[in-house]
């Protein structure tokens, strides 16, 4: 298992190296007008050239790229923002935002898992019943309606009916309710749908019929066998979901004035803040790779039959 993990980590490092290098080079192919503060037509050529020189954008790639890796690997320096918050280390921009997104994300994830999985179990247990039909309708609506529409409806109408603030304010606790609802709706539907699907799959398995034939009650079968086995594929995505809570939600954070990570990557690309883009790509690459790896390991913990060694058979 250690060998397997090290192998995965090694391959992940190569992937991250390639991704970051490509992003670094692509960002330097972007137009440079944005660095002239809207003065492209009037700024003197001398000043323009100096700005680009100081930003390191006039250096050839075979000098700038090794310098970037040297700074990152030798000094652990991700650099300073050049546009979003000029002069500030990018980590000082990212961490406070990641913290806010994580707060909202972790609560929402808890709600999604709790309500979504409970709903999924109830739908599977009473397949074709009123809960199943209602749940399916909910899943259908959530997947069919554009998020922008129902988020806006929630923000405008639910805030009126429940007398809640339309925008988030850290000093007003109840201003968290609407964004958390918005963040949770999609996840609840997704968890309910997959839990129901996996449980229904298990219901038709021979070992379930055997368990019933042996006299186990319906609840015992549902929770000791069906739920546990249905949980295995669900567990795989859990670490990634947990880690990705820090990436925030673009639209919910925008709509409710939440100062999270949601729009930061897009904003930094639009503003051509190269150092910030690189730092965020690095963060998201690491999260993706770590999420997948931890997902595999979590699956193995939940289901001892799964092993990554040759002896136990490969997945």
């Amino acid at each position: 298992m250690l060998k397997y993990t090290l192998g995965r980590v090694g391959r992940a490092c190569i992937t991250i190296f390639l991704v970051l290098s490509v992003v670094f080079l692509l960002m330097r192919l972007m137009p440079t007008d944005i660095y002239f503060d809207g003065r492209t037509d009037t700024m003197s050529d001398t000043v323009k050239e100096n700005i680009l020189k100081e930003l390191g954008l006039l250096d050839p790639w075979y000098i700038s790229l090794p310098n970037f890796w040297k700074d990152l690997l030798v000094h652990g320096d991700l650099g300073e923002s050049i546009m979003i918050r000029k002069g500030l280390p990018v980590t000082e921009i990212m961490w406070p935002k990641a913290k806010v997104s994580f707060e909202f994300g972790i609560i929402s994830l808890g709600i999604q898992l709790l309500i979504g999985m409970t709903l999924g179990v109830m739908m599977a247990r009473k397949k074709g019943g009123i809960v199943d039909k209602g749940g399916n309708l909910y899943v259908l609506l959530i997947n069919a309606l554009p998020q922008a529409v129902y988020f806006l409806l929630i923000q405008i109408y639910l805030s009126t009916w429940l007398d809640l603030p339309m925008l988030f304010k850290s000093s007003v606790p109840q201003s968290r309710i609407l964004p958390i609802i918005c963040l949770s709706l999609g996840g609840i539907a997704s968890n309910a749908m997959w839990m129901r699907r996996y449980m229904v799959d298990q219901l038709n398995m021979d070992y379930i019929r055997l368990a019933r034939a042996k006299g186990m009650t319906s609840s015992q079968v549902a929770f000791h066998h069906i739920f546990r086995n249905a949980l295995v594929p669900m567990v795989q995505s859990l670490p990634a979901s947990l880690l990705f809570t820090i990436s925030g939600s673009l639209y919910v954070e925008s709509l409710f004035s939440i100062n999270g990570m949601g729009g930061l990557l897009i904003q930094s690309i639009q503003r051509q803040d190269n150092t910030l883009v690189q730092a965020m790509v690095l963060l998201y690459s690491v999260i993706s790779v770590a999420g997948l790896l931890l997902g595999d390991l979590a699956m193995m913990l939940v289901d001892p039959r799964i092993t990554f060694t040759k002896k136990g058979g490969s997945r």
Partner: protein
Amino acid sequence: MKKWIALFLSAMLMLSMLAGCGGNTDKPSTESNAPSTETPDKEPDKPEGVAEEQVVKILYSSEISDWNPLHPSAAGDWCNWIDTLVEYDNYGLCQPCLAESWTKSEDGLTWTFKIREGVRWQSYDGSFYGEEYVKAEDWVTSAKWILDPANTARTADLLFDMVGAEDYYLALEAGQPADWDTVGIKAVSEYEIQYTLTEACPWFLSRLTYNWGFPTSAKFLEEQGARFGTDNTTILYCGAFLCTEWEPQSHTLNERNPEYWDIEDIHIERIEQTYNAEAAVVGPELLLRGDVTSAEIPSEQIDEWMNDPAKAAQIRPIRAGTYNYWFLFNFMPTYEEKNVNGLQLDQEQWLAAANNLNFRKALYYGVDRIKVISIYDPYNPEAFLTGAITKPDFCAAGGTDYIYSEPLKPYTTVDQFQPNEAVKYRDLAKAELEAAGVTLPIVAYMPYNTSGSDGDMAVVVTQQLEALLGTDFIKFVIEGYPTTDYLNNCRRNGNYSFQLCYWGPDYADPLTYTDPFRLGQAYAYLWRADGAATQVQEGYKGARKGRNGWDETWWINHNYTDMVEEAAKEVVDMEKRYNALAECEAWLLENAYAIPIGPIGACGYIASYLSPFECQFAPFGLSDGRYKYQWVYEKPMDSDTYMGQLEAWQIERANRISAAQAAGIDY
């Protein structure tokens, strides 16, 4: 189960509340260094209908990214935190600010400003920064910082108007020793700052309202080092407001500075700004709930607001923006000569047409300006219609707005959409072009920016021109380009035949609006028009070339550039100067090199509890971002009130400028 869910949700909420992040709100003890917190002794005269609570609440969707007041050239909130030597009043006349008075030498080259004494530097929390007072040396500190190439200040070249400044910059950039004593920026005494210019600039005062006109405490700059200007706590304040709280992409709180030297003119107590990337969507709803005091109405909601009398009474037109728009004919087409839907794009054919005066006039008289403006403001297009290249309410002489001066009157007082004239010139152009062997119809390439309403505009104007002039005379190929790098892809590199362009003023003089047409700017490349200039080899005496590397050829004797430079030689008699520059503009219009539309960049409607006529007025620099002089009213201004007040304001402004000119006051 329900109980458990409720319990779980409550627990989660409690956790998140406990973990709630703190802002930058802790105010350190100031003790002996504490300024007074008393409100001004004298109660100012309140206009009628002023709200009890003088608090501005707004949403903002564009976050301040550069807190360093000396670094960027973009507008920001610094003007509310740091004062400049001069500022503009609500009629657009230059007024003393941190400079109590000023003098200029007879040759107009040396300007000396007497600094207001007793203004102290303050921290974001209002405490005084030691015993530091704002002094003349603070402007020298700013200039030195800006002229250091290592700091990459975006306004460095604005200081090149000063003696020795460019050489100083270039020397430092080349790593050579540079002597500050050679630069024409000197603190001649503790409270006197002197600027020496390379040539007389009648508009010099307006230049002082840019970022480079902010003072900076050398002690604080050194103390902060690399952290200077990275947030609200790492700058010093001497302006009307203090930024007491700032959380990135969350909120900003500005509070009235009780120590401000002109506190009597500061009526607003707090400016509460909340960041919201979807401000345009949620702003109007928040305004109706009373949660914000100002919100622009998105174009898709305008009809709803207009059709509801209660809502319609709360909105007014947005004040015209600083950019003026016109259609231009391009004299350096570089687009691909491709076939689009059976229409062959041909650069030579386009150049033959663009060089034909009658062809240009056919389009000049043929564009239905109101139809174009209606795309941006369907309810009040007439208000934005402008027949000049210079925007209205920009400058005035002899009690008359510049665009209504004698030379420009024929173009600005009569609607220039004249279909009969257009058809007349079309027939003349047709005959001339056919005689010259040009194949008709002329195929014009018109790119447009896909963001906003420019696509609709392109469709409307091309269909309207084709219907009026006939598709046997002109056909358009329109193509959308993404907003990213649009100007480089479509205007600066000459990738168009005919398109909507714009320009905003950089200083208070009509000379600024001549820039796009003079030799150098990558707009219409007018010097390449037949007979307009003479092409020469590089190194030829007096030869110039286009900027930004788009046109590498060298030229002399450009007719329009020479005309403008001659007109700009007058630097004492403003009426004479403006008249001469207006003649140049009239020449462009007479030759139909540009088809003016108007300041349509900021068309639309706004619901606001603030009056636009109390705000400092200046279409350049940072003055117009100040909240000084403004009041919050009990209800938003409606359209009728706005139009009435606009007319009265325009008359009063022209009179005040006239009086200032008569008294020989620099304004």
